[in-house]
């Protein structure tokens, strides 16, 4: 990694006996789009608030280009932020909202006008300059908030679930807008969301939070294809977990026995496991197939329910050990009617697409 632009060093935040953030350490290079993803209460917003200066951390440090931010009050940090709720100043017009950070910095009038025009063009709201925020839709308000946060060219832009109050269609529209603006301005963005699709769509890297700690940090592909632990595997995408027994390690991959007694070789394992240890094998629903090819593993199941969805089938199957699993194979002409409810059959998966975690 290149020299860190923004560094979070062993950041801890405790509210009484409850610790919201446990010693989080992170380095963010300039220009990166990093998303804090996690369920609510996982510490992602608290970390963001410490960077913004809304809350003092209990211990740890936040460094921007090597200098600590903690002793600097919010209004001197020169950080941009877009909030979850609409926080436009209701008594000021759209143009005056965008101009606000420049006016408090006492920039000359001409420069303010030019910059406001640029910013409104950036978020494509040139024609709304004189409106009051109340006369705008939620999506437009968040675009104004974005323009206001970028008007003073802050080195970092914080976004705290900025799309959570919008409906799905608007959300997708503004996601595209945010990607474009990130590309055009090159600003470093720290983005908080609990929506994994949003995180995967937008980010260069994702830091997945769990109970105040980072469970894994990496690209979306890393998290999806190479989850570091069962929590990550379960949180990102859909997963099935099969109860298995670990037999041995062979050529750097694990060999396990499924509940129906069949042996599967060549499975990737996150941790080192002992011989005979109980373990859980993660298989994505779309990694299952209804037809087997050489090298795939097979699993005996009873079909509980099956439906046809064009490009894929959605099948609920029960394994020999009684677990219900979610199976979404591609629709396969070679196996047109083999998945009727109530029938028993074999389904197949590629061991290389499965992950082994300790139980």
């Amino acid at each position, binding site marked *: 990694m290149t020299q860190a632009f923004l560094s979070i060093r062993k950041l801890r935040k405790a509210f009484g006996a409850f610790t919201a953030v446990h010693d989080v350490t992170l380095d963010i290079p300039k220009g990166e789009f990093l998303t804090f993803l996690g369920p609510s209460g996982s510490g992602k917003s608290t970390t963001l608030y410490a960077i*913004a*200066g*809304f809350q003092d951390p209990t211990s740890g440090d936040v460094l921007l280009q090597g200098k600590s931010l903690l002793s600097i*009050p*919010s*209004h*001197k*940090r*020169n*950080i*941009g*932020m877009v*909030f979850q*709720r609409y*926080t436009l*100043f*209701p*008594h000021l017009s759209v143009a005056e909202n965008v101009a*606000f*950070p420049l*006016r*408090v*910095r006492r920039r000359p009038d001409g420069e303010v006008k030019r910059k406001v025009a640029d910013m409104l063009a950036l978020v494509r709201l040139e024609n709304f300059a004189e409106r*009051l*925020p*109340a006369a705008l839709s939620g999506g437009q308000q968040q675009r104004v*908030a974005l323009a*206001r*946060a970028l008007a*003073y060219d802050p080195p970092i832009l914080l976004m705290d679930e900025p799309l959570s109050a919008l409906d799905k269609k608007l959300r997708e529209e503004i996601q595209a807008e945010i990607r474009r603006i990130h590309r055009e301005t090159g600003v470093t963005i720290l983005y908080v969301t609990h929506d994994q699709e949003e995180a995967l769509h937008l980010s260069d890297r994702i830091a997945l939070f769990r109970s105040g700690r980072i469970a894994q940090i990496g690209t979306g592909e890393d998290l999806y294809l190479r989850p570091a632990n069962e929590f990550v595997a379960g949180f990102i995408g859909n997963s099935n977990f099969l109860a298995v027994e670990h037999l041995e390690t062979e050529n750097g991959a694990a060999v396990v026995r499924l509940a129906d007694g069949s042996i599967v070789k060549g499975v990737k394992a996150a941790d080192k496991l002992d011989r005979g240890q109980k373990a859980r094998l993660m298989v994505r629903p779309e990694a299952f197939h209804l037809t087997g090819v050489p090298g795939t593993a097979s699993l005996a199941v009873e079909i509980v329910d099956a439906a046809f969805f064009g490009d894929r089938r959605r099948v609920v199957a029960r394994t020999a050990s009684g677990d219900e699993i979610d199976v979404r194979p591609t629709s396969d002409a070679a196996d047109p009617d083999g998945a009727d409810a109530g029938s028993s059959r074999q389904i197949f998966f590629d061991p290389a697409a499965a992950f082994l975690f300790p139980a």
Partner: protein
Amino acid sequence: MSVQAQQGIATLRIPEGLGGLLPALILIGLFFVVPVLALLLRSVTDPAPGLQNYAALLGDGTYARVFFNTFLVAAVVTIVTVLVAFPVAWMLAIMPPALASILFGIIILSMWTNLLTRTYAWMVLLQRTGVINRALIGAGIIDQPLPLINNLTGVTIGMVYIMLPFMILPLVGTLRAIDPMTLRAAALCGASPLAAFRRILLPLSLPGIAAGGLMVFVMSLGYFVTPALLGGTSNMMLAEMIAQMIQSMLNWGLGSAAAFILLVVTMALYALQLRLVGSKRAVGGA
């Protein structure tokens, strides 16, 4: 319950139309609207038909002075009340609930305590030989007692005391309706606390300040008890003058005319206040 009683109850009902308003309308119509209109009539008929009462009131320097005094006192009281109430309302709006309920308790106790009791206390506190003068002399700050009563100072202190709750309580509502996130956004935009106050917090609370201030001003204009007891003869207010015209001078014509002038001014300002409160709601919805 017998069948007849059942039917009796079934036909009895609390009306939800105009009918329910009847008792209230009779009371207000007969014992409020009629007497006030009769008073207005008297101002143009007593002692003889014509506008001579109004001419006398508006043409005479003595009365002009009373009008001026009334507006001056109301204005001073309003300004002081707003300045004192704002910081208190601000803290009340954001302080921990336990602390806020103690402060609310003090405000309610002061507001619900008998008006004469409170005014009496200020008379005793402010008089020449009163506690405040003695304390100041005792501390060596002054050597002659300050004239704190029977003048503008006394009226202002007493009236501000009475008006404070009427300003603080609605302002707390206004301030609580402002999203604290808005102020956080202002800070991150680079606004110092002073700039955030001047450009965001103050403008956003202005509708509440204006509505509350206007209410205090209107109430002060027509106030009788406190100015009569704490004020001096040289700065008499309108309400006291009206009372004197009726009670001591038995000049019903002049008194009615003065009362009607007070009524018109009050109602005009009240209408203005209603419009302000209306516009505040519109902004609050943003």
